[in-house]
């Protein structure tokens, strides 16, 4: 027995020695980088080849666009100093900034813009956005710093398109070489890519020659890809992470108590809704949809499931310049709901299937609350969890659902948000008036005129309620207290690190 014990002890010591050996001898100090927690791996770093938010969040620091939305969502000059639109809205002339350099040393000129847009339009690039640029009928470069786009039809959202992440400008020389932009992005942005370890981290270093003087302030950013949100939060607490983008509402009280961490709430550009399939009975009955709207305590779901937010009352994100308030239309009123259901003759004998995208825990949580509230007024709602790609293909594309819960991202241009509604887009809601208003607004360039058209369209949508309009949620970002100047680009959900610094 004594021998056995000795054997065991030797074993334990051996394991410890091995572990200690591994721990020591790998600690090096250098410039303090900013550690950011990114929830997933960008599929690619080529902004033209994807629609994935993670890509745009990453390449925002590497590339620039001709124009960009400022903190308030107003589109302001970036690589273009200014632009002119012809009276018929068909000719757009951009005047480019002088002295801008790509990371590879190339000077930025109108040729780069042209090559970039060409690449976007080329079939073999396989850009999911190339149809958006299909209205460009010609491009002219009268000089190095001027580019003229001619459109085949008026398009109010053209500027917004040019300000979107996928319109990042790539250097012509590399485009011509067939450079691998997937993994080695080269742009004019504030940071250059140092390293991308897929599924692990993206390391960015300061672009000393950036065209905005004195920016960026940070020397280095590490976007750490950490899929588990609890690990992100633990990283923030332990100081291994400086910024955590979205924080699960469950973690908020714990973080509030921590003096090393500060939290910031911003309204997101999200339109949180419960879409109703107006193409199937009994949801084709307006009274039923109204009843469902009355049955939902919207603020409660926003607060509990989404960690707070503001109600919207129509299909437009709260912070948008085109937003109009209709929140008084369907206040929480379960009695009214019951009454309307009675009128419509809908009881609990009708089973409504509520499809929830299972990888979005917040929507699932919200879905459970919706179910609970609808049950209160006598509806029979069954929850079914589905995965994301099934959600897209079955619910969104094929309209095979009764109810679902989702958050639509508000777009830089309202046309992106509203296009297709009234014409049967996935909730199968048909309304000729709304459809024609939306179409007209799409080709109206003047803000006041557009706003008037959208106000009417949004009002119809608010009254006809193909959705339960819940609200725009808050996003809580967590920072170490020594971090400041971090910005999130509205409507694009991308990160702007240019002003970020350690105090």
């Amino acid at each position: 027995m004594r021998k056995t014990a000795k054997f065991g002890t030797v074993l334990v010591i051996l394991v410890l020695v091995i572990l200690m050996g591994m721990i020591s001898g790998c600690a090096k100090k250098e410039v303090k980088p900013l550690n950011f927690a990114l929830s997933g791996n960008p599929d690619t770093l080529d902004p033209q080849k994807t629609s994935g938010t993670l890509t745009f969040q990453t390449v925002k620091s590497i590339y620039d666009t001709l124009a960009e939305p400022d903190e308030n969502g107003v589109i302001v000059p970036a690589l273009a100093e200014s632009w002119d639109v012809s009276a018929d809205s068909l000719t757009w002339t951009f005047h480019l900034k002088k002295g801008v350099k790509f990371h590879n040393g190339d000077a930025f000129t109108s040729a780069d813009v042209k090559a970039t847009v060409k690449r976007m339009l080329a079939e073999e690039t396989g850009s999911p956005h190339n149809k958006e640029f299909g209205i460009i009928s010609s491009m002219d470069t009268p000089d190095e710093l001027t580019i003229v786009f001619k459109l085949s039809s008026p398009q109010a959202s053209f500027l917004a398109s040019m300000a979107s992440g996928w319109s990042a400008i790539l250097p012509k020389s590399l485009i011509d070489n067939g450079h691998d932009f997937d993994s080695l992005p080269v742009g004019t942005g504030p940071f250059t890519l140092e390293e991308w370890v897929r599924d692990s981290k993206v390391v960015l270093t300061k672009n000393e020659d950036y065209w905005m003087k004195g920016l960026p302030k940070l020397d280095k950013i590490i976007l750490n890809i950490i899929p588990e949100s609890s690990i992100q939060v633990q990283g923030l607490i332990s100081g291994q992470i400086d910024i955590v983008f979205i924080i699960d509402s469950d973690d908020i009280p714990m973080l509030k108590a921590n003096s090393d961490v500060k939290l910031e709430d911003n309204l997101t550009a999200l339109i949180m809704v419960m879409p109703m399939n107006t193409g199937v009975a009994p949801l084709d009955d307006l009274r039923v949809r109204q009843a469902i709207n009355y049955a939902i305590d919207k603020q409660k779901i926003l607060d509990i499931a989404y960690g707070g937010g503001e109600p919207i009352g129509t299909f437009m994100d709260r912070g948008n310049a085109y937003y109009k308030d209709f929140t008084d239309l369907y206040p929480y009123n379960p009695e009214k709901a019951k009454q309307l259901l009675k009128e419509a003759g809908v009881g609990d004998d009708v089973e409504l299937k509520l499809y929830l995208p299972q990888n979005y825990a917040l929507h699932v949580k919200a879905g459970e609350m919706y179910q609970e509230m609808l049950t209160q007024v006598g509806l029979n709602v069954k929850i079914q969890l589905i995965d994301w790609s099934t959600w897209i293909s079955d619910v969104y594309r094929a309209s095979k659902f009764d109810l679902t819960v989702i958050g639509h991202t508000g777009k830089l241009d309202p046309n992106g948000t509203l296009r297709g509604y009234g014409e049967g887009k996935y909730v199968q809601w048909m309304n000729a008036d709304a459809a024609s208003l939306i179409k007209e607004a799409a080709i109206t360039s003047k803000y006041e005129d557009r706003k008037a058209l959208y106000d009417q369209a949004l009002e119809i949508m608010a009254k006809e309620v193909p959705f339960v309009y819940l609200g725009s949620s808050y996003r809580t970002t967590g920072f170490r207290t020594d971090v400041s100047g971090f910005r999130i680009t509205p409507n694009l959900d991308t990160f702007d690190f240019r002003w970020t610094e350690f105090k």
Partner: protein
Amino acid sequence: MGKLTGPMYGILRGNMEFLLFLFRRFLRLLLTILIISTIIFFVIRVIPGDPALVVAGIDASDEDIQAIRARLGTDVPVAVQYGRWLADIVRFDFGESMISGASVNKLIMERFPLTLTLAILGIVLGIIVAIPLGVLSAVHRWSFWDYFGMVYSQMGMAIPSFWLGMILLLVFAVKIPLFPLFGSDSLKNLILPAIALGFARAAVILRLTRAAMVEELSKEYIITARAKGLTNRMIRYKHALRNAMIAVVTVTGIQFGYMLGGAIIVEQVFSLPGLGRLFLYAIYQRDFPLIQGGVVFIAVIFSLVNFAVDIIYSLLNPKIRIS
């Protein structure tokens, strides 16, 4: 042939025979891959979800989607897709990821070293803990070590590696910051995941080692060994353990295979860029070529592990010759 006897006899007797054996194994491997990949090919196309929709994002128009389908090659009948794919894989070309456009081979080979290292570390940790503990449990039944082993194996089976991983991180990366919370730069990043991964496997190996040792110790040749006046140490370690290892090796090999599966969860918790997460997201995104390539790759790895187990098995067990 003279002096050649024993386990490697079959290999050394004639290269021809060994080559033939390898060839047979290879054919079997190909057949396995064909069957598995065919099944997976059709299964992933039957389950709902369309990679073109994932690529396009929810705002794309129907035209966009058609264009993307054409580019991805999912616009033609499944049978045609299958034929194309078969034609590709005979050249060991698994195509390109539908989502990121990168070559499937490259994506897999990028991630494999990490997962392999993790699995090896896990199994090594498992073996270091399980085999000595299993032997001690068997030799000193109902002793402290035996109860310790029993408690351990119960825990190992019951504790999910996800939970264990979280706890390890909270304790050894947050409370006592010995290890990093995330990242994949050094071997240090792999220690906690390897423990999380090896813990449950060790429990299985431990139980088996104990059972195998108990069984071997009750066999008749142990009586012979005792009748020869051998010491207990010789009886246990020279005679019984050697035989017990035969079963242990087999199971350890299978456990090693499971490690690759267990890696998915552990890689998620520890933010490691391994195969598990690659395949997990491939499935989320319906990235057909990547899923197919991944399944074939795992099948190959499993076969190689099995092959290695067979070789070790035949080295340990002279009754099984390679033939």
